[in-house]
């Protein structure tokens, strides 16, 4: 089971970047682009910084700059967690 789940992402995203009144985060958003969810590059940077601190991992700036969907971000974070565990 992934250590970093969509629910974790939702929680951190809302805490870091606020709730976007126009988008429903609770549906199936794994492949919905962050842009469509109302989250910009700053929101993702803030979220990534929080994830790094909470989970004690490092993710690359370039990966965060390129990531487009929640599925992509979960992958990056879980890869880093796996790498740390290894």
């Amino acid at each position, binding site marked *: 089971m992934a250590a970093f789940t969509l629910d974790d992402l939702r929680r951190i995203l809302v805490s870091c970047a606020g709730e976007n009144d126009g988008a429903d985060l609770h549906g199936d958003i794994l492949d919905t682009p962050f842009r469509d969810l109302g989250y*910009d590059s700053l929101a993702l*940077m803030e979220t990534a910084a929080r994830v790094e601190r909470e989970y004690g991992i490092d993710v690359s700036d370039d990966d965060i*700059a390129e990531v487009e969907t929640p599925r992509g971000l979960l992958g990056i974070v879980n890869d880093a967690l796996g790498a740390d565990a290894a």
Partner: protein
Amino acid sequence: MNRRVVITGIGVRAPGGAGTKEFWELLSAGRTATRGITFFDASPFRSRVAGEIDFDPAAEGLTPREIRRMDRATQLAVVCARDALADSGTAPGGPDPHRTGVSLGSAVASATSLENEYLVLSDAGASWLADPGYLSPHMFDYLSPGMMPAEVAWAAGAEGPVTMVSDGCTSGLDAVAHGARLIQEGSADVMVAGAADAPVTPIVAACFDAIKATTPRNDDPAHASRPFDGSRNGFVLAEGAAMFVLEEYRAARRRGARIYAEVGGFATRCNAYHMTGLKKDGREMAEAIRAALDEARMDPTALDYVNAHGSGTRQNDRHETAAFKRALGPHAHAVPISSIKSMIGHSLGAIGSLEIAASVLAIEHHVVPPTANLHTPDPECDLDYVPLTAREQRVDTVLSVGSGFGGFQSAMVLHRPEVATR
């Protein structure tokens, strides 16, 4: 009333040199003045390079009391204002203090002193509450940056309109534009206008670290600022100041003043897009350029040189390239364009005024300063960005542009007063 406005005095403090002469020598030689941060222990930071000035306020003639009460940015502004007045042959107060004003730009104002006060007040960050027993007399001066233009006004003997223009990273351009506007409309005859910022301090470094806007090229500080180069990865934080004496054209002529350039036109627009992000199309900067040219009654083909914002972030360089193409048409490919941030870094609110100084000196010397560190241009930045070496050529008319957080896009046209307009 629509009076002509000219620049008759310049004062500069920038990384790599003490005054206008050294500043121009650095730029025209294509030398760089960025280095590893020495002002504080930068080891915990992502970006550890900066454009720092070796500035000794006592040697610059400031008294111990002035040094104590003025933030570093204010010190830089006051020293430059004094230089500009002397350069212009204008005594403090000008012909009439009531008709003399100040327009000072700054993005982060007294950041350095604020941070120093904070460290004392909070016991180095340990306490959220402030110790009511520690109320240093200057805390208010750093809280509210009106102190900065006030100090310049006192140095300049100005009793006309005095203000700070704080439009983020376009402050330096917009402050000079504001000063020119006040003379143009008849609210003042002489304006001491320009900008200063001294942001090489941990809190400001942390701001740009957080959004990864500053470069992590820490292993090669002298070549870390690389606008338009394919290898660029952020700007280099810097400090600096430039102040000018602006005068009504006929009065300047009457007194036989040396006229560096006329402020022909200027405009600012907002992108209303994002506080830090830029749209790729450059639409609003292009509109500001068009409006500035229109006010100067010039066509794009009149431009001999464009002083770019050229911060060295990927989004800026592409945004700006698009804006030039959009506003200048075919002439965008013909006119030399360069970024002095490649040499002295990005001093936030101050840089716009330093770029005006560079533009005016380009006119003075008929030399286009280069973009240093530009070895392999980004294929998307396909204009003539004057790599590495300055060019001697005729320079009568210059466009200088700026772009900043908050979405501000500004443009100014400077030219020899005798250049014909349409």
